[in-house]
């Protein structure tokens, strides 16, 4: 178990190295800091002096890999590559590119807590709601309820999440005035602001998930152990709830595990539509403000969380299914 974990972590580290190299090449080799400065300052105001000043302020004026002007280990550490790429592994993200935004690390820590408040309920409720919906469809398989249920799923998954948001906001916040349109407050009042995004987020993915889970359960239902369970006279509800569900949970967890990184990273669209100051809206602001440092950091952080959450999913397997041995 421990050896497995260590091996996975080691492989994850090499993946992270790859991601880091990729982003470094993308951000500093394909385009030079000069180009970034030009775009960031923008318009006709660009002068060589301004670019130089911009670069000095952000530490982009240093040599790329090797600082000949420094002494000792500073030759290596006082470079763009060290400051902007290697130090990420120590979770030292440096400062953002734009004038107003400050230290990225502090901002990320603050916003991740907010993102979690939105994303964790969505993740858990999503798993429950989709599984229950799928169970109902499977229970009524071959009937009209199943047929129209799946048709509903297909229609629902053909509708962009943006539509759910705009229509839901209009209906629940503007017409019925049940919840505020958007915004966020700390503490318990947060629930008032979060309930609508959670609900809409559930709805927007219900079609895809429920249809998939239904298919996974139908796969299980044709197997021998289900026939055995029926043969010993168990009721359909118990067969489904106790036998089919437990076995279908393995593929279900795999597919749900894919969403785990987004639990920490937050949903870009939902956070920015509802003005929730989480990591998702941080990224959106960074993209519209063309803040390369933030985007770069988030790419790194995103893949770090992705790798960790996949290891978590694997651990969850061995808990759900005793046959799975991690070695």
């Amino acid at each position, binding site marked *: 178990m421990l050896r497995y974990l260590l091996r996975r972590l080691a492989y994850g580290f*090499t*993946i*992270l190295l*790859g*991601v880091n190299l*990729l*982003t470094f090449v*993308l*951000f500093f080799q394909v*385009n030079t800091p000069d*180009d*970034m400065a*030009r*775009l960031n300052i923008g318009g006709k105001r660009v002068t060589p002096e301004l670019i130089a000043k911009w670069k000095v302020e952000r530490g982009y004026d240093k040599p790329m890999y090797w600082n000949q002007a420094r002494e000792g280990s500073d030759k290596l550490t006082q470079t763009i590559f060290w400051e902007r790429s290697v130090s990420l592994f120590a979770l030292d993200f440096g400062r953002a590119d734009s004038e107003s935004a400050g230290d990225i690390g502090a901002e990320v820590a603050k916003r991740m807590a907010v993102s979690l408040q939105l994303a964790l309920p969505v993740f858990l409720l999503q798993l429950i709601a989709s599984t229950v919906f799928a169970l109902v469809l499977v229970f009524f*398989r*071959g*009937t009209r309820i*199943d*047929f*129209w249920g*799946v048709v509903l799923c*297909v*229609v629902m*998954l*053909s*509708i*962009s*999440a*943006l*539509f759910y948001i*705009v229509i839901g*906001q*209009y209906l629940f916040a*503007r017409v019925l005035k049940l919840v505020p*349109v958007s915004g966020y407050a700390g503490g318990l009042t947060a629930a008032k602001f979060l309930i609508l995004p959670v609900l809409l987020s559930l709805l927007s993915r219900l079609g895809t998930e429920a*249809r*998939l889970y*239904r*298919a*996974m359960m*139908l*796969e299980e*239902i*044709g197997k021998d152990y289900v026939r055995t369970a029926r043969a010993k006279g168990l009721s359909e509800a118990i067969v489904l709830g106790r036998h089919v569900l437990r076995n279908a949970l393995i593929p279900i967890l795999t597919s749900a595990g894919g969403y785990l990184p*987004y639990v920490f*990273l937050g949903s*870009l*669209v939902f956070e920015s*539509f509802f003005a929730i100051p989480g990591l998702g809206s941080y990224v959106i602001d960074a*993209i*519209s403000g*063309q803040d*390369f440092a933030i*985007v*770069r950091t*988030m790419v790194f952080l*995103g*893949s770090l969380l*992705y*790798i960790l959450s996949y290891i978590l999913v694997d651990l969850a397997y061995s808990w759900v299914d005793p046959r799975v041995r991690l070695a």
Partner: protein
Amino acid sequence: MMPKFVVLWTDAVLWGAWAATLAYAWHVRRQPHLSASWRKVWRDGAAMSATVVLAFFMVVTLLDSLHFRRALPPAPGQAAGQVFHATRTESLLDVLLAGPASQQEATYSRPLSYQGFTRVSEEVAGEVKRVHPRLTYGGAHLRDPERQWLGDLAWRGGLGLAAGALAGALLLLAALPLARRQDAALRGVTTARALRRLLADRCELPWRAGWITAALLCLLAGLAVGLGSGYHVLGTDNLGDDVLYQALKSVRTAFVIGTMASVATLPFAIALGILAGWYRGWVDELIQYLYTVLSSVPNVLLIAACVLMVQVFLDKHPELFETGAERADLKIFMLCLILGLTGWAGLCRLLRGETLKLRELDYVQAATAFGVGSLRIMHRHILPNVVHLVLINTVLDFSALILYEAVLSYVGVGVDPSTNSFGGMINMGRDEMSRDPLVWWSFSAAFVFMVALVLAANLFADGVRDAFDPRARNLRPRLGPGRGGARRAGVKGEAA
């Protein structure tokens, strides 16, 4: 004077894709097993209807992909034989929709309205009043709008519907020979009988469902053309542009992204997937490492990072485009390449697994024993047996990418703001839905068009998956006992 034809990057790709589709159709006709599978796709009524809808959108897209710049009338003092061209790039669709495209109002107006949506101060009989102004184009032919309006709407709409119905009926007659050639139940009987069978849906393929869909589209198009002759059918947006025109233009953007981006993933996915599965060992390790790195970055972030870099790149190289349209087009093109470069991991993983399985099969082992080279085996024996996975994946990606485009445009890393797209329309709609009184038509138009397109693509993809992959998960509903209906059968057994 000759207009100057402009081949945008995406135009070339779309026409290329069309040519490739035709070539594939030709290939399918000659391969019995492929034509059998495709017949299986269309045996499903939903897939048949979806094909008709997709074909309609495809025609709109192709019409919108013939671009040219009009020649300007000679200016005084211009040398003979010298022709200047307008800076505006138009497409054939723009010419067909010349009315709605050029009839720009001042600002918002409701669908089919003859007056503006917002009040302005106007002098009426010596007094300044806040009134709804008459529109410049919509309903401009009405002399006494309050009394004539409804009648005029009914007249134009009715005429359009009648024309649509006629087109639908003609379509049935035009499609009948095709249906008779393809369908055993319609062959060898009189025309009247074949027609009766087709309308009663007593044939091998669901021609009736397809025809009903096509006829409905004809009716809707007729209605839109009829009403569009005097009004803005779906109203105008805040700049006074026709919403229906924008929605139709957005279809092309969606199509371009859906087709190009899913095609762009193919070279990497196919080549690397098969290589990894065939050679195993360090090649496999390396390729696995590559796609794990790519797929471990959350997609939106990776795309955002790449798009930002492309923006810097385009900023640095203004010589790559001549007009604004070409710049916008280059951005879409780049976006599709990025989507392709970042999105090949899933298919690659799938193909690798399949190749690992295939390489152990007898016929591949036999080929190896005969001394056939690796490349030749991959080309002749592996590739044809994974093509169905590629096909299924491509059609599934299509709808996912259309949905993705809207999100990316919202995030700000999608298409150029000057390009019409569903994402852009939704973005505008977001502000309009918070106005009072509500401006709902732009958003609703985006909703209807996008859902129609994505739903059709999804239904088509489901049909393709079912027909080509017998082991695919059972994602579709089935009525009655039989497939997967063990419970009902069991209950019945008990009752007996």
